[in-house]
């Protein structure tokens, strides 16, 4: 990835003797200033804030200190990476010059550009990819701790406090990882090339969204040392208000992450609407683009509610307000509503781009046109539209509004219709195609299988009386792992294998991709079918130990989990070894027709020398019939 160095420098102007500020900033100054900011804010908070007085319910000094220190961290970090340079240059009326913009884009910086506020969408894509894998790794380790704890009769190897903390951390880390796993790496690296653009609409916002996530990660990791998140990933109040300062890490993590998704959502949507190549009408826009836009556009109205829910939580903890405390007129149902107004669109934010990516691959690997492009769009649009109206199906059993259970059951079950269209498109594309057996092709099969199970169990759960029996049990946990992991993550890993040649210039090792695939898929189905069984038998979620009745099912699940781990480690090894030693990839290894395969490896700085003009859609496979 360093061949940018080979290209002749066209702008020798920036070799001035005095280095400009932006040339000095990188990830190290960011972490340095971030830590300094945290320490300074911590001591200022300790010195200035009065000791906690009696009379307020939840407020505590340690939460004030921790929250302020994390705000100090954020300000320091973003200053240190150079995020504020742009706005202040705008304020002062000194807009960036062309050379400076090229420097920001990482021109002639070689490998260094991966460690600074680089605006080139391809660099951001790679940064997102590595970030996502790191986050998945942490979440995966936590998952294995959970399964190990539950893997012998009765469970209970870990202390309850530790176990609860791990469950919450695993949950929220994986949710965030799955949210960014497709739109982050592939939405940034591949999407602009696919639509024939030179970069994103707002390259600096692109870098901002990435570095906000990187600033957020230490917040959640610091929770480990601050008592963890013993509240599950939902962090329901008032339980969360009892939580240790680790909850503050959760709060800051979510707030920063919500800002990041907001910025990324506006950026990606604008790029697609305004910057498609000449001739790329909506009919000729690849389906993956629809998936990415639906996902990020859905996040725009949804995530502010998550942000708000955590702002209120932080206020309760740090200022003594009583939004969630019933003793002061607050309400736990308020939190649940705010949370799930975000929470249900969010699962489609995760799912849609992964399914759309597999739809994009389906014609390539079956050598026939995508079946029913219009239905694919209708499916995506229908899911996105309905998903904002279904949040209270997470709250059937809360009792907050029993009369609304009926209407919410209706909207929830209506979602099965557009979801069915996604199946129609995929199976219609497989039918009468030639199957080029690669790991992504097998992933389409895996998606059909896993998503069918996840979808059908979703129909059970959407039924209020059945939910009365199954809500809060391991059945629900298994259900959403089938959708988010069995469908979502499967699509994301297939995307990695599929676009790896374009992103790294090397082929993903075929054997390793197959070994990883089988380990993960077999392990996955063993693990979560076992979990369905204990859920049906009545094991609640998030318990660290359980009755003897559930021993067998939990053993099965833990066994399956270890297979998943083996497969994931194979994938990880595959990524590292292929990236460093893999076979050089040709420009278009899959003989596909989308625009990203028309640019050379490695992709040059502004993607296209001459912007392409599109004259047909990308699915013109198959022989015309005589």
């Amino acid at each position, binding site marked *: 990835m360093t061949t940018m160095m080979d290209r002749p420098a066209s702008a020798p102007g920036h070799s001035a003797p005095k280095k400009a500020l932006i040339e000095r900033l990188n990830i190290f100054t960011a972490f340095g200033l971030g830590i300094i900011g945290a320490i300074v804010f911590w001591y200022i908070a300790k010195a200035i804030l009065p000791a906690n007085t009696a009379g307020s319910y939840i407020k505590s000094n340690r939460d004030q200190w921790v929250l302020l220190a994390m705000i100090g961290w954020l300000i320091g970090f973003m200053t240190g990476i150079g995020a504020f340079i742009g706005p202040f240059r705008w304020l002062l009326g000194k807009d960036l010059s062309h050379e400076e913009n090229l420097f920001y884009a990482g021109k002639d910086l070689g490998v260094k550009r991966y460690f600074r506020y680089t605006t080139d969408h391809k660099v951001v894509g790679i940064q997102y990819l590595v970030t996502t894998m790191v986050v998945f790794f942490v979440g995966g380790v936590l998952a294995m701790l959970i399964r190990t704890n539950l893997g012998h009769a009765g469970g209970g190897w870990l202390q*309850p*406090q530790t176990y609860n903390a791990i469950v919450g951390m695993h949950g929220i880390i994986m949710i965030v990882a799955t949210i960014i796993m497709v739109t982050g790496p592939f939405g940034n690296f591949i999407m602009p090339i696919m639509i024939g653009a030179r970069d994103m609409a707002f390259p600096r916002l692109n870098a901002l969204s990435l570095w906000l996530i990187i600033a957020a990660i230490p917040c959640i990791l610091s929770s480990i040392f601050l008592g963890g998140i013993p*509240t599950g990933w939902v962090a*329901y109040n*008032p*339980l969360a208000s*009892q939580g240790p300062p680790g909850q503050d890490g959760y709060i800051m993590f979510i707030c920063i992450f919500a800002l990041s998704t907001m910025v990324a959502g506006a950026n990606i949507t604008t790029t697609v609407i305004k910057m498609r190549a000449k001739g790329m009408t909506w009919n000729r826009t690849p389906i993956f683009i629809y998936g990415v836009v639906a996902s990020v556009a859905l996040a725009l109205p949804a995530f502010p509610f998550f942000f708000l829910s955590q702002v209120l939580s932080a206020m309760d903890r740090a200022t003594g307000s009583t939004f969630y405390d*019933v003793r002061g007129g607050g309400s*736990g149902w308020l939190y649940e509503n705010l949370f799930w107004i975000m929470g249900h669109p969010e699962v489609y934010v995760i799912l849609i781009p992964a399914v759309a990516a597999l739809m994009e691959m389906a014609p390539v690997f*079956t*050598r*026939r046109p*995508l*079946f*029913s492009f219009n*239905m694919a769009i209708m499916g995506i649009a229908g899911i996105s539209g309905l998903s904002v109206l279904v949040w209270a199906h997470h709250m059937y*059993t*809360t*009792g907050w509004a029993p009369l609304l259970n009926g209407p919410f*059951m*209706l909207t929830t*079950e209506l979602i*099965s219709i557009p979801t069915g*269209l996604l199946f129609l498109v995929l*199976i*219609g594309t497989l*039918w*009468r195609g*030639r*199957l*080029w*057996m690669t790991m992504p092709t097998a992933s389409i*099969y895996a998606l*059909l299988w896993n998503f*069918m199970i996840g979808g*059908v169990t979703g129909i059970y759960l959407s*039924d*209020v*009386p*059945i939910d*009365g*029996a199954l809500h*809060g049990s391991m059945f629900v946990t298994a259900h959403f792992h089938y959708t988010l992991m069995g469908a979502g993550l499967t699509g994301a890993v297939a995307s990695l294998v599929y676009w790896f040649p374009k992103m790294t210039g090397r082929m993903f090792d075929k054997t390793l991709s197959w070994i990883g695939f089988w380990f993960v898929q077999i392990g996955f189905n063993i693990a979560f079918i076992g979990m*369905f069984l204990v859920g*049906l*038998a*009545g094991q*609640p979620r*998030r*318990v660290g*130990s*359980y*009755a003897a009745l559930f021993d067998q099912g939990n053993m099965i699940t833990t066994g399956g989990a270890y297979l998943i781990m083996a497969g994931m480690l194979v994938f990880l090894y595959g990524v590292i070894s292929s990236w460093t030693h893999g076979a050089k990839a040709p420009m278009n290894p*899959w003989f596909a027709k989308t625009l990203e395969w028309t640019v050379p490896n490695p992709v040059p700085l502004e993607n296209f020398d001459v912007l392409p003009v599109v004259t047909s859609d990308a699915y*013109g*496979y*198959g*022989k*015309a*019939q005589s």
Partner: protein
Amino acid sequence: MSDLETQKRPSVFERKDVKQTVYLWVIFTAIIGYVAATVQARSMGAAASETMSTTIHMIRVFTWVVAPVAGLIAAMAATTLISKMHFGDTPPDEADHQIRNSPRATSTWLIVSSLLCLFAVVWGTIVLQRDNAAVLDLAAMNVNVTGQQWVWNFDYVDNGTVRSADLYLPVNKPVVFHVTSKDVIHSFWIVQMGIKIDANPGYVTETSVTPNKIGIYDIRCAELCGLYHAFMQTKVHVVSQADYAAWIKSQGGHA
């Protein structure tokens, strides 16, 4: 439904791949429906109330209703897989057609999925109405349920000031639970009776059930409620009317 083509050849059902798909469809539907329905019903165990019996029944029926859809997708996927696999670093020949759409297949699919959805909604609504009406039953006995970290307490308000940590219920008598919490959110779940309602601080929520089998069943907390959430469980003893009256007396209440 097995036909995704627009062509008007009369021989569609005589084509080899279509025939194979139809056979596989029947086989897969039978296997999926039987295995999934049986395994699920068996895992859920014996029901201790009408509510739970209905739930198990609904899951069984939903599974059988969905089985043909899952079976069709599996059959089509399997047929393609069996006949058209190609390994190697170069792509196979292009497919011998350029079919991009099939209004017939698409509309069939939409209609069938809409009907299935309608079925699920209507049935679910009917059962839901029954459950909602049961909460309003004035003849039912009332039990106040209070959750706190990490125990349940039951107050038999119709029988004086009786409080217990294990729940006692007379068989075949409707009971309405008035559920609340002293600290954080808990969820009151009688596993074998298939009912669940959250215990919220500051609010009273209600649910109801009619136990129909004498025995001892499980109550578990279904909402993460802190350190000992896993241990926040107790038993419900469903006893005969006479035994219940005797137990209430022994606790100092009046029948």
